[in-house]
């Protein structure tokens, strides 16, 4: 039982405890065998479990594979580009890789009800990328990063490995290699709630040093966890773009999706709830005139971690990354995880209701502007709104005009090193990213960071205008795309 209340007092009186399975121990599918697993109150035997999981995986993924759903019905599955799989070595992405391999790279094992009569893989190339985050921890690369290639290559020579490092986000050489626009090393200055971008006073550090400065400048442990997640996400998106990938697949399960939805909403990410579940990110390459896009899909988002764990156990998958969660973390994502995992143990259907409810949320108006930091939509007028709802002291307010006479500050003396040109980027950050950088730390002080290195993609933007822009799906396309996910299993 997991709840915010006092467990000794309230106990199970909050919700009556339901039996873990509905009627009998017989499999609800074949009605012959004795069941081996209970999935949200329904009993399945081991034989029926495998096709059940692979059908759910394909139902979530395959309606998004072809550029338009109509093409799919006539010609089978054919993507407009390559595939990038984000691989952390954890449970979800290990199961994802296994499902991709068994579904698309071993055609003779394909099952009936096949939606792809021509067989074969819908993508010409399959890339598998992992991001080594040891740079953020100032640690030596862990063995899982070495095992990564072995695991991926043991499947199939058709998987092409890409090893990324978190510090690549600050590496102009990496940025150039993947075909990014001309960029320069710049950094943030955070002055109260204003974020400025200007040349770094020291631009000779290594990418790893920039990364560590970046991480250590984040005000709270929640902000650090988010900051790392965002860097990983953007590294994967730009890698997908550079490899001409039309799809980026992530191993987010129903459980982990619910965790990220709740923790994102609680941290001001409500405007991009839709993007947590499905997202189309568009970009334009140097020297090109048309926009390309990457669809970010989470094909396991109908599967709980329980189903993933049984799949991994019964298929004897090697899970190379084991350490991420050892408990005791106090950031919002970790606390949300504790809560959701506890909830799932006793009330498994509630967790799927979270993801389903969020998939029905839409924002009132569309936004074309995207956040420099995370690439997600920026809500129009967000700063005005934030000014209206925030409780602040006068010292937080920047312009003297807004202050009553008696608290006006004397004009500040010009500082000699501040003659560097800057761009004010506050209005070009989403609410969540802005809040991440300006949130109060545990000591209650406002962050007043200067010379915080900015990721290469943030630097590439202001001087080059809106060249990497984000396109939303048309209404019809969107409806077709999410129709399947709204059906009950």
């Amino acid at each position: 039982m997991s709840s915010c209340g006092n467990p000794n007092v309230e106990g199970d009186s909050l919700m009556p405890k339901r039996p873990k399975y509905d009627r009998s121990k017989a499999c609800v599918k074949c009605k012959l065998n004795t069941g081996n697993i209970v999935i949200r109150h329904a009993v399945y035997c081991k034989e029926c479990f495998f096709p059940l999981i692979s059908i759910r995986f394909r139902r979530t993924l395959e309606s998004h594979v072809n550029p338009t759903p109509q093409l799919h019905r006539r010609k089978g599955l054919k993507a407009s580009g390559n595939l990038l799989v984000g691989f952390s070595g954890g449970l979800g992405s290990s199961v994802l890789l296994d499902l991709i391999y068994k579904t698309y790279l071993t055609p003779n094992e394909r099952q009936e009800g096949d939606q792809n009569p021509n067989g074969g893989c819908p993508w010409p190339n399959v890339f598998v990328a992992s991001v080594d985050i040891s740079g953020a921890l100032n640690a030596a690369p862990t063995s899982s990063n070495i095992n990564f290639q072995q695991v991926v290559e043991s499947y199939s020579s058709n998987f092409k490995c890409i090893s990324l490092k978190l510090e690549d986000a600050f590496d102009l050489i990496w940025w150039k290699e993947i075909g990014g626009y001309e960029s320069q090393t710049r950094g943030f200055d955070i002055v109260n709630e204003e974020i400025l971008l200007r040349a770094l006073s020291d631009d000779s550090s290594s990418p790893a040093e920039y990364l560590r400065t970046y991480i250590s400048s984040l005000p709270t442990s929640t902000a650090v966890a988010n900051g790392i997640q965002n860097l990983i996400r953007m590294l994967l998106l730009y890698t997908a773009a550079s490899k001409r990938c039309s799809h980026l697949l992530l191993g987010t399960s129903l459980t982990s999706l619910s965790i990220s939805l709740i923790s994102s909403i609680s941290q001001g990410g409500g405007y991009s709830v839709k993007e947590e579940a499905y997202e189309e990110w568009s970009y334009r390459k140097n020297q090109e005139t048309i926009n390309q896009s990457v669809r970010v899909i989470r094909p396991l988002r109908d599967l709980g971690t329980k189903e993933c764990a049984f799949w991994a156990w019964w298929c004897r998958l090697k899970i190379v990354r084991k350490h991420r969660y050892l408990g005791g973390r106090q950031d919002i994502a970790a606390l949300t995880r504790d809560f959701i995992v506890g909830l799932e143990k006793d009330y498994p259907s509630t967790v799927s209701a979270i993801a389903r409810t969020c998939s029905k949320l839409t924002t009132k108006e569309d936004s074309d502007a995207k956040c420099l930091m995370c690439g997600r939509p920026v809500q129009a007028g967000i700063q005005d709104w934030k000014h209206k709802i925030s409780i602040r002291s006068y010292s937080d307010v920047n312009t003297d005009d807004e202050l009553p006479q008696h608290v006006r500050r004397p004009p500040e003396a010009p500082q000699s090193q501040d003659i560097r040109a800057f761009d004010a980027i506050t209005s070009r950050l989403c609410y969540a990213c802005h809040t991440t950088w300006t949130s109060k730390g545990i000591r209650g002080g406002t962050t007043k960071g200067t010379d915080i290195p900015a990721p290469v993609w943030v630097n590439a933007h202001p001087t080059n205008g809106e060249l990497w822009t984000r396109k939303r799906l048309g209404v019809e396309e969107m409806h077709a795309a999410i129709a399947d996910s709204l059906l009950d299993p």
Partner: protein
Amino acid sequence: MSLDVLSLKIEFGGGLELLFSNQRSHNVTIPSKVRRDDSTSLLPLEDGIETKPADITYLIHHLRDHLLKERSELFIENKTVRPGILVLVNDTDWELEGEGDYALRNGDEIVFISTLHGG
């Protein structure tokens, strides 16, 4: 006449083995009759002590007291496994077998899998 002890095969997966000397497979012998309060003292049962046939709840306490090497809070919580740890009894989800109340039999295979390492 039932056996005095049960011989069980225990397996750990999903990273849980890290708490158990990084060894995935263990053979464990437990008494077939145990104290009702799940205390795992190896002293002989005296008259007047309430007993029960060994079940998985007892096994969880036994593993904590005799096999676990570190950080018991990552394995056990409120007299059962911590949320996020799955249990299989002879290849079947323990939710179909009465969870902690399942009465163990000689030769049973019990698997504990952690799901706490995400995507």
